[in-house]
């Protein structure tokens, strides 16, 4: 054992691009992260809506028609459920990061808050329209 030893050849495996496909837990994580994609589409819709509103009446009507097409409705429904899913995961993680109250209480509180804001908006916007 006196001869100088070469560098120890430890085997290092590399994570490939598809690392997240290897495990159910990682897949669910990626699903959570992917909820941003339909949300991006929805934000695009909103921005286009704003733009067309200040551009001309025709473009506003075109936008309304666009929003009513079945595939856009479908995509926005997807956004809705994706956001709900993301909210669920987020609400469950939150009490672990800021452990102020018992977790179930904090989770319920967050849902209650979401529901209240949604109701308030519905009332406000419903009243305007």
């Amino acid at each position, binding site marked *: *054992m*006196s001869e100088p*030893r070469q560098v*120890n050849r430890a085997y290092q495996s590399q994570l490939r691009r598809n690392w997240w496909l290897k495990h159910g837990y990682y897949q669910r994580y990626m699903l959570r992260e992917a909820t941003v994609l339909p949300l991006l589409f929805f934000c695009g819709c909103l921005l286009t809506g704003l733009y067309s509103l200040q551009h001309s009446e025709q473009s506003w009507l075109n936008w309304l028609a666009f929003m009513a097409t079945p595939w856009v409705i479908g995509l926005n429904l997807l956004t809705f459920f994706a956001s709900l899913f993301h909210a669920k995961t987020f609400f469950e993680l939150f009490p672990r990061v800021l452990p102020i109250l018992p977790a179930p209480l904090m989770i319920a509180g967050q849902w209650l808050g979401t529901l209240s804001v949604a109701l308030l908006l519905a009332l406000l916007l419903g009243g305007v329209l």
Partner: protein
Amino acid sequence: MQVLETDIAIIGGGGAGLRAAIAAAEADPACRITLLSKVYPMRSHTVAAEGGAAAVTLAQDSMQGHFEDTVTGGDWLADQDVVEYFVQHAYEELVNLERWGCPWSRREDGSIQVRRFGGMKTERTWFAADKTGFHILHTLFQTSFKYPNIQRLDEFFVLDLLVHEQQIVGVLAIQLNTGELYQIHAKSVILATGGAGRVFHHNTNGGIVTGDGMALAYRHGVALRDMEFVQYHPTGLPGSGILITEACRGEGGILLNRDGYRYLQDYGLGPQTPLGKPENKCMELGPRDKLSQAFWHEQQQGRTGDCQGHAVVYLDLRHLGERHLQQRLPFICELAKAYVNVDPAKALIPIRPAVHYTMGGILTDAQCQTSIAGLFAVGECASVGLHGANRLGSNSLSELLVFGHVAGKQAASFAKTAKAAARTEVDQYCQQQQQQLQAKLGVKSADSIAAIRHEMTLAMEQGCGIYRDTAGMQQCLATLAHLQQRYQQVFVSDHSKVFNTELIQHYELGFGLDVANAMVSSALARQESRGAHQRIDEGMQQRNDERFLQHSLAQLTEQGAASIRYQPVRITQSKPAVRRYGAEPSQQEQR
């Protein structure tokens, strides 16, 4: 072969080694300290200690009380000056740990909480839930990062000590992940390698507790003292031997035999204390030797139960309630669930005695110095003279702090004055050792390291267990001699350099065989019963102070046997008396 120069080499990264390293680093910031450990330090077996660490803490307690409990618990075989030093310094060491961040359990007002423990007349055991050793080890390990002069060599296994003219020169070690040999030259060396419980079949110890340091010193002519005293912990899990802490009984747990009867009351530990109201030094809070011996008698009389082929009695914690258990004994709940599928809040835990601790070890003086200049030993591998014939629970964690501190300081001051020894002879010796190592590597043979080790552990269990007799021990010695012959013939089949774990096991088995031999030889020579050493031979069933109020010293002879001689016990204030537990007050307490 690589050569490293350092001032102090510490062998072993458990509680004692780390405490010594920190003490040396603080004593002399200029001194280079090299800490070698065969595992990463936080894997060391200190990690598995559960119950706590003792120090006089409460107003109603006294140094005298802790002194008496320790001396009585050790059946008057402790060196009393050492015990005095220990009880006086235990508290400040626990405070040190507190100030380094150890998460000790607390009372509502924020002060330190103490619990009852076996053989202690009052509450004086500091604890961190039921993972005290774990927290002590991690606190020491993490605190050691603060000191730039502590250099760690993790996963280095020490093969031999380098000694020249009765002075330590350094150690020879192998780096596990390269197989490379290192000569580490040091002015002081501290052995802190832990116990040797793995030479027995049923034990609470981790796989690394193989007696390495004891054998290293023994082979260089240092005596092993009081090796016959091997502690059986009364509550290990059947089969695995996993430790179920004495703190369970400190909290109020009770022991039942097959018929649900609290059998300890029949063995001088009664009368029965009311359920949930444990009393110090009574019943379940008797010392470990008495409790393990009571199990043996129950087993002889057929009053033990059966758990997967093992004779067991039962630990009942149900009356403590789920909440208290989760708060005070969470690890025990986890272990019981995982390893015997029992929820302690609802059912009885099957338990049986298992080898736990070696009271004896490398002979040192009160300053941890061995007979080789510059070689120190501390912790379970050493015999500084604290535990006598039976250690009290929660004294060993305090011991490794108190004497780890002493060893570190002593080693630092020795290193300052010592001169580096001549290298040439050491070099030659190391070359020889390397050749011997090479010679161990061979082809796979019918015999194996695992087989020899298995037979050794069974022989020790049968011949040198809770109760011993002449015929059994002679048989055991003969078996060990035969195993030693087989060991000389057995090769390591693995030729690889990187993590050759078989080679390491070969060395560990060699160490274990030497230590086992010293244990049985010392036990055979002690023709009396004292503490953890109990003889059933006619005329040896009682303590015999006239002949055996002495430490045994085992010395390795050229033929590989152990020669036994004796050394007087240092008695300062407590004259030997009858050890009394249970309701009978002891003589000291009457005084």
